[in-house]
């Protein structure tokens, strides 16, 4: 995907954009890897790999509910996505 000029948007940022668009923008709207995989049509292993990188960059955060990891986007992650279209 491209947003201006000839530089493509990385897969990781595109994935972050999808997480935003499906509504994972607050802890109470967090999803599990399986749910994310279903919504985005990205395989669970690939989704987990991308989530770990986004966690490291602090664009995504995680909480544990009943022993299951649930992911949501941080304020910085939201801004990162919105910067593409503003």
């Amino acid at each position, binding site marked *: *995907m*491209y*947003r*201006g*000029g000839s*530089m493509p*948007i*990385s897969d990781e*940022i595109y994935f972050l*954009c*999808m997480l*935003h*668009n*499906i*509504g994972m*923008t*607050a802890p109470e709207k967090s999803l599990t890897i399986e749910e994310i995989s279903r*919504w*985005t*049509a990205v395989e669970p292993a690939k989704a987990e790999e991308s989530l770990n990188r986004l966690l490291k960059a602090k664009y995504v955060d995680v909480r544990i509910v009943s022993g299951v990891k649930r992911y949501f986007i*941080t*304020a*910085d992650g*939201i*801004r*990162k996505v*919105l*910067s*593409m*279209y*503003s």
Partner: protein
Amino acid sequence: MLDRAGNSMDICMLTWEYPPRIVGGIARHCEGLAKTLAKMGHTVHVITLDFPGAPQYEEVEGVKIHRTSVELGHPSFIAWVFIFNHFMEKKIAMISKEVKFDVIHIHDWLVALAGIATKHYLRLPLVLTLHSTEVGRTSGFSNPDSYLIDGVEWWATYESKRVIVTSNSMKREVEEHFHLPQSKIDVIPNAIDTSKYEVKVDREAVKRRYGIAPDERIVLFVGRLVPQKGVEYLIKATSKIVNSHPNARIVIVGDGWMKDHLWNLTISSEHKHKISFLGFLSDSELVELTLSSDVLVVPSVYEPFGIVALEGMAAGVPIVASNIGGLAEIIEHDKTGVLVYAGDPNSIAWGVNRILSDSKYASWLVENAKRKVREVYSWDAVARRTAEVYEKSYGGA
């Protein structure tokens, strides 16, 4: 000030970003405008999107802020935009049961669908502020989303009674690209609250906070890290700046989808240790850092206005900016700043070095720039002119 008949207006302002949801300049523009209109005696309802930690409803300095939650999602950004516009319409429909709005004011394409639907439903005049265009942001279309966004922008200009743009260059762009009649367009610049820069800062403490040595001179960039902002050309100018001024440090504030590319460009450069990426900063942190800087560079390759230049001018920081769009209208070369060629690292380095080499020249630019900001870019003047546009739009929806 109220309208010419002395009446207070009920204004419905739609924007996808409003503090603390700050992405680009739109949030600050809407905040400044809404607060000043409220101060003038109008009732301003801002309909915006939710953000972590921000309440669903609050009143700040007289502005009634309604934040919309988006209850459905879809991986596609465009689908998400259509969905959030639906929830905005629903919110406005609920508010309009108790409030009789006089005018709807939308900011950019992102809220156009909700604005247009509300115009027809409530039979109200619609005013659009076009802060930028898709064709300008993307330097030409490269995917179907851009064609759709361009279409929505055209549709919004067609449906609006009046179209506000922030510079003459933007007016020309809108006239040519959307074939919009000149008589429908009003040019009203952005503005700035200069009082927030009237604070004393401990420059050494601010520098320490970001790992900058006390004797280093800050060459600041503030903005979204996207191609139109031209940050890569500043990074490429670093060698020529540092060779002339070894104590210069390039400080990049902001985030965006291009950050990884810019980071890779930095770590492959000779002077990578002279470039700092600070990410997104809060308003107060940004004010302190700006006041501690020696030069502010605005190297955009597309800039309908360039509010960051005004912020630097108000803060008393000499500006180096691309000689394009709104920047070329705000800044008078060699009087209120230094204009350089867009997309040209050599030219940017020349401009920065000129300022860093001559403190008397830098001080002279700063004094002229401060005066110009105070005289031309005040929120009172901009809000008064916007209210006049609202009045003009009353001629039937």
